[in-house]
Structures are given as structure tokens and as C-alpha cells.
């Protein structure tokens, strides 16, 4: 999260995995790794997902050259939509320079040779693990989420046959009971991430483990949002400008996290902050989780 670390991330960004001068995508693979039949299958699933906002479309997820839990769903979605003219940004918990983001970015550089960026506004596709960029996105951008457990009801009802029926009937009382139990136990809704949302007034959806701080950004976002869960084999979507409502109660309205601190690097007081332990004497600092936004804010301040 330091400036040096971010600079290192940007250097990795510009180098090829092979260390050689780049001449197009690695010829040993099809463009974007996946074979064309797999892409067609995923592309059809995405179209249905867009047509039925918030509904989890089953798809024949493939094994990818990275383990489940490393974003295989998001990678398959990105691989099915990306073209040579795209500019790709990959973030992990908001940062461009963390392991997951760096390895996925390198994967796409190697298999597609697309231009990459760390600047949010320059990207046409942003693949993300667990954050939505602080900067507002535009209609020309697509946000691809990596999703571990797509089913918001899964920890309340383990049977797929039952959760599917619950979605079909709009039987979401159990989810409200869960939030109510939070209030009964803690006095407030204690769910802080993967906070359930209702999409377009119909399906309840898991926004992936993004902090609930990011939920309001999903509401009527101008960019298309695509969600891929590789292990669980589900794809879902939110079209641009779609109503996304975070579940709550009249007497306990939805609220996002707030901090007493500001970012210690850029001074921003309106961003999602990570608490970073700095030594073993109890030292800690709060810094922006969105590294690009933090850099921009510093540059603007200077």
C-alpha cells in the first residue's frame, strides 16, 4: 500500500511475463485462453443474465490455469468479452498491485496482449475482487466481479433445489430474519460485506464480498456489471442504470461504514479505508483501499 509498492505494481504492469519484447498474444493459446465454443456458451449465459437482472445463470465453468478462489469466474467472463481494443484494469481489494490482480493482469496480457492500465477512467473493462472503484464509472465501461458464493441464501438454506424455489417464489423472508437477528443480537445490522441487495425489485442478489460501503455505488450505476462464480458455476448481471436496493428495515435503515480517521497517505475522508498494521507495538494506519484513487488524490493535492 505504500507509494513504493504501488510503483512496483506499475512496473510489473508494463513488463511481459516472458520478459521478451511483446509481439501479440502468446501464439500457444487461443485469444483470451478459452476455446471458441466455451466463449459462445459463456456469452449466451451473460446475455441471459443481462436480460434477467440478478438471476444466477448456470454455466459450464471450465478449469482455468489458476485455483478456484482466485477469480476463475471473473476471468472466464472477462475472457469471453475482451477484445484487442479493450483497456483492462484488474484490482484486488481496490489495489492494482496485489498478488491476485497482478497475476490476472499478466494472464490477460499474455493471452490477449491488450493494453492495461491502473487508471480507473481509462479502462474499458475492470475486473475486481471485492471492491468497486471509488471513482464513478461510465456507460462505456464494464465491471466484472469475481464471486466466491453467488447464492445469497446459501448459508441460510444449503439445498440448491430449495434456494432456487425461494428465488422463483420471491420467498425472501429468511433473509429478513437473518438481518433481524443481527439487530436482536447486536442492536444494528452487523452484516458488513456481501450485504444482500434486491435488483430491479425482483431478485435478491449477493454483490460478492464487497464491503457494504460499495453497495450504494451499484444503484443505477451507468456501467454494466457482470458477476462470475467459477467454482459455483454461475453468472449474473446488473444492466446499466438498474435499481439496486440494499435490504433494510424502516426503523433500521441501510447505512455504510464510516471512519473517524482519514486516509494517512492522501487525506481523503470519503473513501473506504484499510487498517494496516505497521509494527508489533500496536502501530497502525488507515489508508485508502482504492490505490488508484489514492494516487490521484495525492497528485491533486501536490
Amino acid at each position, binding site marked *: 500500500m505504500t507509494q513504493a509498492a504501488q510503483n512496483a505494481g506499475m512496473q510489473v504492469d508494463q513488463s511481459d511475463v516472458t520478459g521478451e519484447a511483446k509481439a501479440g498474444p502468446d501464439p500457444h493459446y487461443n485469444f483470451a485462453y478459452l476455446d471458441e465454443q466455451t466463449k459462445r456458451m459463456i456469452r449466451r449465459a451473460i446475455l441471459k443474465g443481462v436480460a434477467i437482472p440478478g438471476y444466477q445463470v448456470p454455466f459450464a465453468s471450465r478449469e482455468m490455469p489458476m485455483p478456484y478462489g482466485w477469480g476463475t469466474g471473473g476471468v472466464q467472463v472477462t475472457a469471453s*468479452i475482451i477484445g484487442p481494443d479493450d483497456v483492462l484494469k484488474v484490482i484486488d481489494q481496490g489495489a492494482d498491485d496485489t498478488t491476485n490482480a497482478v497475476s490476472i493482469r499478466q494472464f490477460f496480457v499474455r493471452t490477449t496482449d491488450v493494453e492495461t492500465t491502473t487508471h480507473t477512467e481509462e479502462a474499458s473493462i475492470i475486473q475486481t475482487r471485492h471492491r468497486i472503484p471509488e471513482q464513478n464509472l461510465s456507460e462505456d465501461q464494464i465491471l466484472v466481479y469475481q464471486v466466491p458464493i453467488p447464492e445469497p441464501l446459501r448459508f441460510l438454506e444449503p439445498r440448491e433445489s430449495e434456494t432456487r424455489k425461494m428465488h422463483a417464489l420471491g420467498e425472501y423472508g429468511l433473509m429478513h430474519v437473518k438481518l433481524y437477528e443481527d439487530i436482536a443480537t447486536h442492536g444494528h445490522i452487523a452484516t458488513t460485506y456481501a450485504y444482500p441487495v434486491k435488483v*430491479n425489485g425482483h431478485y435478491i442478489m449477493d454483490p460478492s464480498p464487497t464491503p457494504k460501503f460499495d453497495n450504494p455505488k451499484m444503484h443505477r450505476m451507468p456501467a454494466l456489471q457482470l458477476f462470475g462464480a467459477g467454482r459455483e458455476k454461475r453468472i449474473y448481471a446488473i444492466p*446499466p442504470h438498474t435499481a439496486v436496493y440494499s435490504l433494510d428495515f424502516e426503523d433500521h435503515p441501510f447505512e455504510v461504514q464510516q471512519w473517524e480517521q482519514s486516509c494517512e497517505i492522501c487525506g481523503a475522508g470519503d473513501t473506504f479505508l484499510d487498517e494496516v498494521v505497521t509494527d508489533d507495538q500496536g502501530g497502525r494506519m488507515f489508508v485508502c483501499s482504492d490505490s488508484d484513487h489514492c494516487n490521484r488524490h495525492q497528485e491533486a493535492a501536490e
Partner: protein
Amino acid sequence: MIGADANGSGADSNAIAATSAGFDNPVLQSQAMYRNLLSAMAQPGRIISCDLSLEVPLPLWPTTAAAALTLLDFDTPLWLDPVAATVLPLSDYLRFHCGCPLVQASGNAAFAIISDPAELPPLNVFAAGTDEYPDRSATLLIQVERLDDSRGVILRGPGIESKQCFQAKGLPSGFWQQVQENHSGFPQGVDMIFCAQDRIAALPRSTQVEV
């Protein structure tokens, strides 16, 4: 097998010689066409221009052919309207390039190509999915002569900031009422992609229509 047939003699080689070419670069051109389709579906009623240079058998249009080449394969049963179904070069083209099974029963089709909007059957003859699996529903590729987003019916819903005007030429009477019924069955329903010569627009089931 196909190569061997093409080099051989007889009726088979003539049939294949008569089939128009598909994409020059299937990987990148289908990706580009898919992004057009995705933009159209994500922004209902918005007209998306497609830059295509495809020679296709009539009455297929380049946009329809490109959408078929992009989305269809052996997994997608295809229904052709009765007029298009009788045009041998057209069904040969789709069978050769996409390898998709052609079905007679519209209810079994994952995709349908309607070459002339006058041939469009009632929307409820196509698979609308089930409440538990609404994705198991048909996508209709409907060829129309002209698309217009400055007048016509008013669309609202996901993908539309406030409202979107939309008109497609030649749709049968009662079509918009069927679209309203299709929407009222949400999450079940069919999704439509309108294909003009070089432009497309989409109308998913999630869109409300005000006539």
C-alpha cells in the same frame, strides 16, 4: 471430413462451394459482434451500429448472420420462420458454419431467426423458461428493415436511464401487446434482438413498454 468433401467431386462439393464464407477471423470478429450484442442487450432500444463485411445468403442480413455465427453452435437448437426454412442456401449456411440443429417445433428452439417480421409467430410459441430456470428461454433474432430510436413506443426498465423511444418497421399488429404480456411474465419470457442491415437493437423481457 469437410475438407475431403470439398476436394472431392459430386453434389456435395457443389453444395459446399455455394455456401458463402463466414467470418474471415472468427475469433476477433465474433468477439466484436458479441460486444455489439451485449451493448444492445444491456441498453434496450438503443441502436448499435455494426461494422460488418459479410456475404450472406438472402434473405439473411449481415447483422443476423454475424449474430448467428457469434452465438450459435451444436448446443443451440435453431428455429427458422417458414419462409426462411425453405431457402436451402440459408439453412446450409447456418448448418455449415454454426453446426446448429434446426428444429421444426418453435417451443424447442434456443434461438429463432425471423427473416421477415411479417412471419413472426405469437411470442408465446417460444420457450419462456420456467420460474426456477428462466434462462432456458428463446432468443429471437428478428430482421427488420429499419430501426428508429427517436419515436415509437417508450421503453423503460433496466439498462435505460429514464426512457428510450423505439420503433422497428414492419412488426405485425398486436406485437407490442405481446411484448407487454412477455414482460408481465417476468422472469419468464423471450428476449429479442432486432437486426437491420447494419444496425441492431435489443428488447429483453425486463423492459416495460408504453405504447
